Each structure stands twice: as structure tokens, then as C-alpha cells.
């Protein structure tokens, strides 16, 4: 129970920071997405089932404040988190190099998915921002992964979900 509450609280906190603090730290017109990076890092250190749940949950939170089309972030976050969990299975999660690189690649893939879906519902965006935000996300994920890894080593975080 404490585990679910911790993750949910962190998600909401990162969402609020995404909407308020991050735009003030814009570089070249882009800013990182803390909640997405957190979901990815958390998926790497946990099982695919958890990854689906956190992907959908973080996506739903992002979608509330997304402009058009509820579900875009839910879909893309879920897929990315599942891939992240699969990656986490096959690497040493103690070292942070591969998780950081994979979260960079996944955030670019997520950008492409969002771009494609938005294109299909006739909302046009600028594709270059995906690369820039990917690089920014890479920098954030270096710190975020260390934080998430330490969090996952805590005793109350190790229990399985019960429902």
C-alpha cells in the first residue's frame, strides 16, 4: 500500500513540476518531462506488469493537461514503459549507463508516436522539438535514474502489488 501511495504521490508531484517549474527552465524552447522520465526509470527497475500500470497512470495524468485527444500519452507511455521493463530484465540495473541511454531512445520514440497520432487527428507539431527534448530528457534521467534506483531498494518498495 505504501508503495502504491509513494509512486502515485511522486507522479502527481512531477506532473505539477512539469506544468509549472519546467517551462521556466526552457532551453531553446524545450523542457524535459519529469513524469515521463520517472515512469521510464521506475519501469526499468520493476516488472512488466508494474510498468503497464505506471505507464497508464502517468499517461492519464499527462493527458488531463494535454490539449487535444485524451489517451495519446496513455498509449505511448504504456508502450514505452513495457519496453523499458523488458530492457530492465536483460541488463544490470545497478549500472546507470544503459538505463539512461535507453530512456533517451525511448523518449525520442515516444515523441515520434505522439507526433504520428497528433498528425492523424490533424494537429500539426514541430518534429525538431522531439530531438531537443530527448537530449534534455537524457540529462534529467541521469539524476532521475539514481533517485529511482535508490527508491526501489527501500524495504517497503520491494513488495508486490496486491489486487
Amino acid at each position, binding site marked *: 500500500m505504501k508503495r502504491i501511495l509513494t509512486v502515485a504521490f511522486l507522479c502527481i508531484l512531477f506532473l*505539477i513540476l512539469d506544468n509549472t*517549474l519546467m517551462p521556466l527552465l526552457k532551453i531553446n524552447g524545450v523542457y524535459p518531462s519529469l513524469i515521463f522520465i520517472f515512469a521510464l526509470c521506475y519501469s526499468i527497475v520493476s516488472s512488466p506488469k508494474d510498468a503497464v500500470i505506471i505507464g497508464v497512470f502517468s499517461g492519464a495524468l499527462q493527458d488531463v493537461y494535454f490539449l487535444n*485527444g*485524451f*489517451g495519446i500519452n496513455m498509449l505511448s507511455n504504456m508502450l514505452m514503459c513495457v519496453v523499458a521493463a523488458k530492457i530492465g530484465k536483460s541488463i544490470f540495473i545497478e549500472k546507470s549507463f544503459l538505463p539512461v541511454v535507453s530512456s533517451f531512445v525511448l523518449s525520442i520514440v515516444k515523441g515520434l508516436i505522439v507526433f504520428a497520432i497528433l498528425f492523424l487527428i490533424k494537429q*500539426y507539431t514541430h518534429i*525538431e522539438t522531439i530531438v531537443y*527534448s530527448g537530449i534534455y530528457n537524457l540529462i534529467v534521467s541521469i539524476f532521475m535514474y539514481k533517485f529511482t534506483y535508490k527508491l526501489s531498494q527501500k524495504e517497503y518498495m520491494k513488495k508486490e502489488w496486491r489486487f
Partner: protein
Amino acid sequence: MRFVKNKLAVVIIILSVTFLSLIGYSANREKMSFVENGVGITINSVQGIFYDGFYKIRDSFKFITNFSKVRTENEELRKINSALQGKAIEYDALKQESERLRSMLKFTEARNEYKYIGADIIGVSGNNFLDGFIINKGENKGIKKRMIAMTGEGLVGQVTSVGNNWAIVQCLSNENIAVAALVESTRDNNGIVKGYKDENNKLLAEIQRLSLESGIKEGDVIVTSGLGGIYPAGIRIGSVLSVHEDKGEVMKSAIIEPYVDFTKLEEVFIVVPKEDREIKY
């Protein structure tokens, strides 16, 4: 069927299909669902405080780094202030006079078919992909989807989704917003303004579909033309930075620098028509 036995894969596929249909359904709806609305209202209460706080911190940070500049600015402002005070007294007298004259002539104001609702910005939306703002007024004040947001400086954007007491405004800098516009110097009114980003990711706008004969030039002022009749004519949009000719499509287009700085907005006005009718562009 080994595949069906893999429960996780089945769940993922079912969820994917659900989300895709949800996207299709929600892309064109008029009002957001009560779940989103409720979650939004709850989070907004905290978010508004955060946004104000961070904004203040940034402002005070800027104050410290620009201290010497602030001091010279202060002296200049003091001079201007004394000059303006004199003018303000004059203005009051003139204003009273004009009010009297207006009531005498039963002057019908050109734009009184619209109401203006002030709203504070409480957050940024769109995660990099789209530029938008979360504002703290919604359906309870009569705001509906596709209404126009502006500030004193000029046009900001369009409302794209509405909750009970909050709404999301999409900025002019997105390519998805089209506004009928007019070149003030030449009175060409067949332009359409859309969002544009230059190679430095600076948020600009572009006016398209002008005829090749148009005499648009750098520095021209672009205003809304009011075609379509939903929002007032004459809201300022921006000034022309550069003009391009497209012989293939037989049109001229021009890059516009908006008067509104989309990164420094704190409050906007939503333009609400008093006549209740379908809003459609």
C-alpha cells in the same frame, strides 16, 4: 496458441485498442469528461500556488542579476512618472468629457457585442509538443471551446478544451490555429495567420494566402479581420518580419513577430460573444 496464453501481451493489445478509440472519440468533443474535470480541479488548486511561487522566484532572481540595470531604470521611471502624473489628470478630465458626450450622442460602442473575461494562467500544458496554457476560468463563466484569448498587447490563442472552472488555451504559435487576418497598411483581408517556429525554436506566426499583388512589406501591422464574425475585428496580432513569394501556390506569405510574448504571459482575456450562437471557424 502460445500467444494468447501470454496474458501481458493480450492486456497491452486490448489497452492499446481502447486508447486508440478513446483518442479518436475525444479529439473532436466539445467538453471534457467529468473525470478529467474533477482531477483537473483537484490538481489545479495546488498547481496554481506552485506556478505563482516559481514565477515570483524567477522574477526576484532576475532582479538580483540585473541590479545595476534596475537602479538606472528606477531613476528613468521616476522622471517618466512625474510627467505621466500630469498627463493622468488631463486624461481624467478628458475621459469625463468624452463619457458625457458619448451618452449624449447615444454612441453605440463598436465592440459591445462581446464580453471580456479575465483569467489567470495557472500552468503550462502540451509537454513540448504543443504550446498551451491552463487558465482558471471555465464553463461556469461562459467560456466555450474555440473562443479567442487575448491580452492588451494582442491575440494569444484559442480555447481548446473546457472544464468546469478551468480551461486550456492553445497558443497562436501552434500550426493548428488559423485566424482570418488583415494587413493594416494595404487592407488585404484574405490572409490566414498560423503558428510558425524558426530554426532557433522562436515562437512566431505566419500569414499565408495573400495574393501575389499584395503590397505587404516588412514592419506592416497585422490585425484580425473579423471575417467569420466570432471575435472582434482589429485585435492586433504582430508585425511583419520578412515576406516570401510562393509562385507555385500563387500566394505571398510573411513571417510575423507576435506582439504577445508567449513565454511571459500571466493573465489573458477570453472574448465571449454576447449573442449565443454556434462558434465555428
